[in-house]
């Protein structure tokens, strides 16, 4: 952040985040149309229900509900016993029913949390207010003074995740969004591709004097920002703008702003006067959702999440935390790492070696083949490798004896000399020696002055 330390003395940011994620279910939220709309012929994945035709009724997609609960559980939420859909009433041409089926008073998941890190590595807990289920709208395309509507996206399941205003720094927001994306992909509930609009961020940003406990009496909503980077930039800009405004004695009000990447500034989209009254009420077309038995069922089928997997890798395989973190970044890598560990066991390949190899080679093990290759590679390298320290000591002493000049150079501080001596050992063993052990023995001998 570029706001400067002197300003944080006076004001601190208060940031809350709303994340929409489109689920990758087979069919839409309330009808049987295919949910996959990406680059499909417009208005081909539609039916009376998602077109909002008179007489049509919604029918809940259970797969979506399961995925919503998985997200809730991954975010440490309570799953409520009784949930309800509600209607959010507003007019927009991409909303064929004149209302969106959403949740307001009875969300599926409540009171969760997620730990985030800021850029300095400080960890803090962000409280999750709710995780709820809703549906997407159609898509408008404006061109040549005309507006076209494509309803392929209408009714695609969306999950909304709302935090409490617990963020105090844009770097936390970025970490949170990345962690969410990782969770969605781990759970296989969404591709969570920002550019395709699978995952959308909205930030509520305001600032308050340091020490003030109450929330500010306004908030600025940042909307329609489709990358982590732009969102971070927009929040940083907004914090600066608001602090400057307050310092000038201006009064800030509720408004919605967008991000102009060319000018690198936020701009006003809608002011408070234009705010909607959504007139939420229980969706009479859908029965209540009784979740009591559902929670247990979904819990049993939950996959291991990145944080838990990372900790398990450290304790179970004795690998470093840094390596474990890299290995769990993508679900597939962690999965194949464990496969490789199993395969390597027979050849006494240590998990740490495999972890090093995968991390250093930056390979994303994507197939069974690559797993086998990794194990074979390490195993092959190790055939006939001299590990016995006594043997190594003997060879090292021979090399030292034959290269008095290099020893002299080393003693005079020439570091290249060490390389030359190692090279000697390697030549003598045709490279089949544990280099790390050679280095240890060599340095010990040279430092002790224990030379012939």
């Amino acid at each position: 952040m570029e706001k400067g330390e002197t300003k944080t003395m006076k004001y601190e940011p208060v940031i809350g985040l709303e994340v929409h994620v489109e689920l990758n279910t087979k069919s839409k939220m309330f009808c049987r149309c295919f949910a996959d709309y990406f680059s499909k012929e417009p208005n081909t994945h539609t039916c009376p229900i998602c077109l909002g035709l008179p007489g049509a009724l919604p029918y809940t997609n259970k797969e979506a509900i399961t995925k919503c609960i998985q997200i809730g559980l991954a975010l440490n939420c309570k799953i409520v016993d009784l949930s309800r859909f509600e209607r959010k009433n507003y007019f927009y041409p991409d909303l064929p029913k004149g209302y969106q089926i959403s949740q307001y008073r009875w969300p599926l998941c409540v009171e969760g949390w997620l730990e985030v890190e800021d850029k300095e590595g400080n960890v803090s807990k962000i409280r999750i207010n709710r995780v709820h289920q809703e549906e997407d709208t159609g898509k408008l395309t404006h061109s040549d003074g005309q507006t076209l509507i494509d309803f392929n996206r209408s009714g695609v399941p969306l999950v909304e995740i709302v935090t409490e205003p617990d963020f105090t720094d844009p770097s936390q927001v970025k970490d949170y969004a990345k962690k969410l994306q990782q969770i969605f992909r781990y759970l296989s509930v969404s591709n969570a591709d920002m550019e395709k609009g699978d995952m959308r961020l909205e930030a509520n940003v305001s600032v308050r004097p340091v020490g003030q406990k109450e929330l500010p009496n306004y908030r600025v909503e940042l909307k329609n920002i489709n990358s982590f980077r732009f969102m971070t930039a927009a929040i940083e800009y907004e914090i600066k703008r608001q602090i400057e405004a307050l310092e000038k004695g201006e009064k800030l009000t509720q408004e919605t702003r967008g991000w102009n990447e060319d000018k690198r500034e936020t701009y006003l989209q809608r002011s408070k006067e234009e705010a909607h009254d959504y007139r939420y009420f229980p969706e009479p077309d859908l029965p209540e959702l009784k979740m009591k038995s559902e929670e247990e069922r979904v819990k049993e089928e939950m996959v291991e999440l990145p944080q838990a997997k990372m900790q398990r890798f450290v304790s179970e395989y004795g690998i470093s935390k840094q390596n474990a973190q890299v290995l769990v970044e993508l679900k597939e890598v962690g999965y194949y790492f464990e496969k490789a560990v199993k395969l390597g066991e027979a050849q006494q390949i240590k998990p740490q070696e495999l972890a090093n190899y995968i991390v250093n080679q930056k390979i994303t093990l994507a197939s069974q083949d690559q797993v086998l290759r990794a194990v074979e590679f390490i195993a092959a390298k190790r055939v006939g490798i001299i590990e016995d320290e006594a043997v190594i000591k003997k060879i090292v002493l021979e090399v030292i004896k034959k290269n008095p000049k290099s020893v002299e150079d080393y003693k005079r501080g020439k570091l290249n000399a060490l390389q030359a001596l190692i090279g000697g050992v390697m030549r003598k063993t045709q490279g089949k020696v544990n280099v790390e052990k050679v280095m240890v023995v060599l340095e010990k001998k040279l430092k002790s002055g224990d030379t012939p």
Partner: protein
Amino acid sequence: MSLKECLRKGKIMDLTKLTLIETIKGLKERQFSEVELNRAYRERMKKLNPSLNVYLWAKENGTEGIPAAIKDIIVTKDISTTAGSKILEGFVPPYNATAVDRLLEKNISVIGKTNCDEFAMGSSGENSAYGPTKNPWDLTKVPGGSSSGSAVAVASDMCVFALGTDTGGSIRQPSSLCGVVGLKPSYGRVSRYGAIAMASSLDQIGPLTKTVADARLVLEWISGKDGYDSNCQNSEFKVQSSELKKDLKGVRVGVPREYFGKGLDEGVEKVVREAIKKLEKLGAEVVEVILPHTEYGIAVYYIVMSSEVSSNLAKFTGIRFGKTRDKFGSEAKRRIMLGTFALSTGYYDDYFAKAAKVRTLIKQDFAKAFQKCDVIVGPVSPTTAWNLGEKVNDPLKMYLSDAYTIPASLAGIPGLSVPCGFSEGLPVGLQILGKYMDEETILDVAESYEQATSWRKVKPKL
């Protein structure tokens, strides 16, 4: 004498006088053909529709199936469906309502789409944008509403039976005012898929028929689980094959004090009380019950219903249907305004949330009453059919005419109207309400009564 012989001897000149069950039997026994049947109804329709204004759309050259009339708020594939509104003029749905599909499977054909109050909002049929339907018993009177056209189509033999929708009495009340049988099933018994929504938590499709047995059969056809209506599950209704009990021994009939109070027309009361006496004579045990929250029914209904209306009618815009919202009639506009207000921030708790609570109390009233009885009986409407135009400018007076039908709608329980006599030459219906998902008992009681009386045989002179 067989039907065929009757026909031959000219004793029954008109196939349109047959009930649904008689029609099925006649076709099965080849006493007449589907072509003859359709021709008879078409001729009847041609003769009467101009004066009664029943059909908004009618089939020109139907030759197949058993002709049924469908309320124009129920969507029919490739057949225009207006919901009685100018805003949907020219709208041709690309799909059938589930109930319509189920009828088509039973060799029923759609002979016409019947007139109704705009989006089923009205108690007289006068809120139709296509002019009011007339009462066949007296053309200067309203037929009731909102299933005005469906009730008149049955009463005037312009169809074998009809489908209507009932949100606060829209099947039962016009049935009562036109002297036919009308059944509002339990909420969730019949799929609402394809019934253009007025108030989603109340709407229900049901049959209007010439006899109780016909209503029972149509209910069997259209009821049952539908993968397109989440509120319609475990809802199959089967006609019991056992013989109808002639008497009502062992049946406890509850008479609610609140349905016989101020506002009930004397003539109607007399007819209904006589009908209750008849039930007693048939062996029923009559007990008095109380439904203490009845007086709040209309207030609760007008908040819940109009709230849902305001949301359900939001989709009708020029963008999708080509007609701007000023095409809504005044009653539609009134309810959109009422509902929008009741749901607004700052009013939701005082109106919608409170109404939802009172609705629960009304439901509990019925649950308690049904501990003492098997069915509840009373009038359907406080009056017989009134003059066209009489209440048009007095919405509140119009709303009050639904006082006896609304509570059952709010509770989601089944109710029917069966003809039980006349007051000053106009039909009066007996309302029979039952426990949730117990259509069986109300149909049994209604049929026993119907078979022990001869009201069904009295037809309007047209």
